[in-house]
């Protein structure tokens, strides 16, 4: 039955793990937004378990796409058919929602990016390089410090009449500046609105530097939930900003679309999905430093119930290519032994 077939899109980031189930007619069946909390493997398994409980038993996953900074891990655990970087995934999702979109502002937990599209194709992009000031984690931290739930951050900022000037170049200095403004007696909404403006200025001066920002503009990623930031973007850019309906899971949605694209191109291919029951098995991750050469790569190995699923982290391919040739992890054991000696 058609309505029991889904594409699974997974986006495992530093802060959140998002999953979507997409129907073949491009409508969304389920969307999950979970906190990764530094345990990506358990979070992925938890997510699959949750999804499984929400769909009928007869359901079938016909394609899987993985993205996010832990896309390789997610792909290994799930048996994904498509593994793509988050820039492409976000761009694909946005241009499916609105083919005319020309700019995507994306602010996530620990990174922020800008993507410029022309005629539905990415023409330019940038990611924050050496600084994470003004990403979701910082907002989280500040909200906690001020004792307000993160959900109220934006609405409170919107109440401001005269936002204060906050130094936004560096999140540490932004914090001390905010404390100073509090001590001077400025109201909370004014400080929050000032912080939103500082963050937006910082974003546009760093990530958005030299980028040709044209409308329609999409604002996505977890931070898009904050109307204060959205308003600050609108004021700074002088254009209206669209927050798409599924702004929080656009990466996962893009991954699902990419899985769908792949199936459309090769209709005969079967998914490599490892099944909805994978939440019940045991996964283990091991890491060791290879002593084969001076690069000293950190190798990660994923093991499912004693069987090595994948290894990565090596530059030369010695470990990643060796998977499948041996089922035990004696090589890895040998390496660890050497290191410990």
């Amino acid at each position, binding site marked *: 039955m058609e309505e029991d077939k889904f594409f699974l899109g997974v986006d495992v980031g530093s802060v959140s793990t998002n999953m979507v189930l997409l129907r073949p007619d491009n409508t969304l069946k389920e969307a999950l937004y979970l906190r990764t909390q530094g345990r990506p493997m358990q979070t992925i398994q938890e997510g699959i378990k949750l999804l499984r409980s929400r769909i009928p038993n007869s359901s079938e996953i016909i394609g899987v796409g993985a993205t996010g900074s832990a896309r390789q891990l997610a792909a290994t655990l799930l048996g994904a058919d498509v593994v793509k970087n988050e820039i492409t995934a976000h761009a694909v999702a946005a241009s499916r929602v609105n083919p005319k979109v020309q700019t995507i502002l994306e602010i996530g937990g620990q990174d922020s990016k800008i993507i410029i599209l022309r005629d539905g194709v990415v023409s330019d992009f940038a990611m924050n*390089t*050496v600084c994470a000031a003004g990403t979701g984690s910082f907002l989280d931290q500040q909200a906690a410090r001020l004792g307000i739930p993160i959900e109220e951050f934006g609405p409170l900022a919107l109440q401001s009449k005269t936002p204060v000037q906050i130094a936004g170049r560096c999140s540490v200095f932004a914090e001390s500046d905010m404390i100073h403004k509090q001590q001077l007696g400025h109201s909370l909404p004014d400080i929050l609105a000032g912080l939103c403006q500082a963050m937006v200025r910082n974003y546009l001066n760093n990530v958005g530097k030299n980028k040709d920002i044209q409308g329609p503009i999409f604002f996505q990623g977890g931070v898009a939930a904050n109307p204060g930031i959205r308003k600050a973007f609108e004021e700074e850019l002088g254009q209206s900003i669209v927050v798409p309906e599924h702004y929080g899971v656009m990466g996962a949605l893009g991954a699902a679309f990419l899985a769908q694209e792949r199936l459309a191109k090769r209709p005969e291919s079967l998914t490599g999905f490892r099944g909805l029951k994978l939440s019940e098995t045991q996964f283990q991750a091991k890491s060791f430093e290879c002593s084969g050469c001076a690069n000293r790569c950190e190798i990660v190995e994923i093991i499912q119930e004693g069987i090595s699923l994948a290894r990565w982290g090596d530059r030369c*391919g010695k470990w990643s290519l060796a998977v499948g040739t041996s089922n035990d992890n004696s090589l890895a054991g040998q390496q660890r032994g050497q290191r410990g000696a």
Partner: protein
Amino acid sequence: MKVTFPHMGNAWIVIQTLFESLNVEVVVPPVNSKRTLNLGTRLSPESACLPLKLNLGNYIEAASQGADTIVITGGIGPCRFGYYGEVEREILRDAGYDYEVVTLEPPNGSLLGLAKRIRFLAGTKNSWTKILKALRFAYLKSVGLDRIEDLIHAARPRLPSPLDTEKLYEEGKERLAQTMSEKGIFDTIQWVQETIRERQVNVRSSVDGKYKPLRIGIVGEIYTILDPYSSMGVEQELGQLGIEVDRSIYLSGWVGNHVFQGLVPGYRSIKSYPGYAKHYLPHFVGGHGQETVGAAVKFAREGFDGIIQIFPLSCMPEIVAASVLPKIQEAYKIPIMTLIVDEHTGQAGIKTRLEAFVDLLERPTMLRGIEQTRGEVLGVGGR
């Protein structure tokens, strides 16, 4: 006297050859690694650029192998590297390392002064004829090295097994490092070409021989583009994503221009770049800022699909170049991405950006479904 020197990609092969042919004892520091960087970072000012940190790490690692004299090139102009010889001397002394530092540059413009420094390093046994001969041989080796590297650039996206291609590169370098004759250099290049030719025969008929690789030009600060450790192996990574890479500066091109003052061209001479840059950056800004801009224009005119600029955090000449590149991107409609590296740079972040950049270049043609043949390695690289 035991001479050591900082690493910069493959340069050690050439420098080792030079000193060995003059019978000067030389210590090649262990290649750049996490350990090198950690050791160097501990002694460096935080805002110094990545090359200083790696240099210092190299010296400390070399000191434990008995090195007591450092050779480094100098330079004038706004790039800080010209002064690193002096800075490193001071830092090492403060840290308790007793190193003699010889900066190979004409002090106050005096060629005699430079000659004296070379004489100091070469000792009294070597005649000037012998020194010049050794310099010539080392130079020829650097050209050979560059040819092999560029053959690998062309081979990575075209040959079937990435692991075997890297092994071929390593063995080519190894053979080149060992040889002490011009014939040996020539034979090594031929051997690499022959091996590539054999492997390519097997690919030609298969389906995956069909796609013509996209071409990306790498420009930027010389140390970070020549040294794969500091750029997180950008070239290898791109090669394995199916991209043919070319680079603005090769070792011998830089040696020819910087050390031999333009007397020899080197592989891919860098002399023409300021001419290409003229319209966008008409004057010298230090380092290779102007070369970066010029090379970007040249790559764009040659029909490359994209350009990647790499430089260490806080590199002034390249920051100037970076602010000019968007104009070239606009004029030639060629995507340009900038990567900034320092000791905090992570492999994952670089990989994500490279993948996204390749997607950006690939998706338009993929959606249109253009098929072209892949071409022969030897017709492309190492000419």
